[in-house]
């Protein structure tokens, strides 16, 4: 039944997955175990996204299923500390002047399923917000997202302010979004640009010394 749940979720069978969760709870299954199974399913979804079988709809749909199952499990869950060891921390956000979030959210999703703690600051974030978050969370990676050309300059000034605050020593910066490429990377002073969410995952893993 455990594998049925993983399969149902990985194959986008929402109703079936919810039904299995109900049945598992009725049989007295540990809700924490069910929660772990949803994470396993998300890893399968992530792999299928990575190999080009799945696209935006499946990432968003699986996020929805996790949310729904989470709501079902919530009353049954005893408080537990998340003891899973994270690979590292990534501060993520869309830069000042830009309110696009879909690309940023995909990157956040893929980083999380690959074992990173993601601090998502949201959209239209001023330079100071990134500086503050880096000081507070000590991430290994700062990931700046943006879709419009206004983002080029906001990314540049964000990198400059992070540098000026003396925070760049143990921090690697990646930029991503529709128009980002090597030319913009050089312009902004970032360490890398990502063409897609997989590139962000690879960069984050490399930054924490995991291949």
């Amino acid at each position, binding site marked *: 039944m455990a594998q049925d749940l993983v399969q149902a979720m990985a194959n*986008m069978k*929402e109703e079936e997955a919810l039904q299995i969760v109900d049945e598992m709870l009725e049989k007295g299954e540990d809700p924490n175990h069910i929660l772990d199974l949803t994470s396993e399913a998300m890893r399968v979804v992530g792999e299928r996204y990575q190999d080009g*079988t*799945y*696209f*935006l*709809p499946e990432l*968003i*749909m699986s996020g*929805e299923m996790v949310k729904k199952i989470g709501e079902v499990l919530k009353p049954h869950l005893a408080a537990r500390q998340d003891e899973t060891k994270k690979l590292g921390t990534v501060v993520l956000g869309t830069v*000042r*002047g*830009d*309110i*696009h*979030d*879909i690309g940023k959210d995909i990157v956040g999703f893929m980083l999380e399923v690959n074992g990173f703690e993601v601090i998502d600051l949201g959209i*239209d974030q001023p330079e100071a917000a990134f500086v503050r978050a880096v000081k507070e969370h000590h991430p290994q990676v700062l990931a700046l997202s943006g879709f*419009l*050309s*206004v983002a*080029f300059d906001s990314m540049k000034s964000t990198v400059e302010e992070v540098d000026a605050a003396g925070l760049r020593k143990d921090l690697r910066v990646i930029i991503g979004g*529709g*128009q*980002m*490429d090597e*030319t*913009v990377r*050089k*312009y902004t002073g970032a360490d890398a640009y990502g063409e*897609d969410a997989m590139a962000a995952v690879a960069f984050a893993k490399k930054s924490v010394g995991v291949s």
Partner: protein
Amino acid sequence: MAEKPWAHMSADEKRAWRIDRWRNPPIEFVSPEAEADYKARVDRLLAAFELRKLDRVPIRINAGWWPASWAGLTPYEAMHDAARAAQAWTDFTLEFQPDPMVSPILYTTPASVFETLDYKLYSWPGHGVPKDASYQYNEKEWMLPEEYDHLISDPSDYMLRVYLPRTVGAFAGFANLHSFFDFTELPFVSGHVGSWGSPELADGLERIAAASRLVGGWAQATFAKIGELMALGFPAFDAGATKAPFDILGDSLRGTREVVIDLYRRPEKVLAACERLVPVALDWILQRPGGLSTPVVFIPLHKGADGFMSDEQFRTFYWPTLRAVILGLIEEGVIPFMFAEGRYGSRLEAIMDVPKARTVWLFDQTDMARAKQTLGKVACIEGNVPLSLIHAGTPEETAAYTRGLIDAAGEGGGFILDIGAVADSGKAENLRAMINTAKEYGRY
């Protein structure tokens, strides 16, 4: 041309009529040279559209707010000072001399219009986004899932009595209006008219009237400048826009997240809505009072790009109804101009299924050599100097890229040079390098 009733004309006759109207606008040119330039530009674009021989690669500038920043205006200022904004766009066209003019219409509408209407779908400079940023869409589930059936059965009624009251404050009172079918029978009329009595609706109507006056002032300043540019020899490119049915549904009705969830939760509703929106997308532009000033209609493409869905999903949910809109426009003598934002590499084979030499496709990050070898056999392709290069590269890099692009996509015609993405800013010297390369290296 002998006037034949429109309904009796063939698609080719309608097309010829529209082209004639574009090529011979009812204006006075400043000089015979300007008139010759205007016609040469129209003819160059038409030859590219129709995959015919031409003198050189036509040049279009996919400029968003760039004319404003070039003139020292922020987007905020451009949306608050119609006269200065219109002048900025005129000066930009005159400075860079592209083939079609760079039109201010999509950018300079006064912010006061949206403020007066309480328009909630977008943020604009100084109102939700900084003054130096462009207007941007606010992602939200503006249409609820249980409203699919209303949209499908009567799209305009749904817009008027549900969607507009939710998304535009001035229309809030429309939510309480009775059906307009009340007017088909005398005894029902008073019931309907009575529903117009709310103070909310009266206030809304005043605000709509005020917004209309604001648009009137802007339009006067703006269209005078557009007329000036035409008189100087620069044709307008597209006459207006419509959208792919899936994008109408996904962009600003259901929203990006919700529409892709619908692909799993209620796929049959998505398909029915897209099919229902085909005639809506056609009427949107074709039934506009006053007709079209050029034969070109713009269709920005959003949610069918690589990454947004699988090839199977594209062929099921996105392409059939977009193709129906394209064919419907061609049938009415229109030249559909699609802007395939993002990457479209995995769609090139599917979209080849269009009538030859009747469509134009602007690409951003799609491989143009492959586009030429596939879609380029049946359609004019346009693009794709990277925005990053224009913004942060050098003139040498830009010129080198442009030469490579002309080699890859320009052979035999059927190609228009452009920036791949909407440029809100950039380096003038890079744009000049792009343009000069086309004028010299792009000769046939």
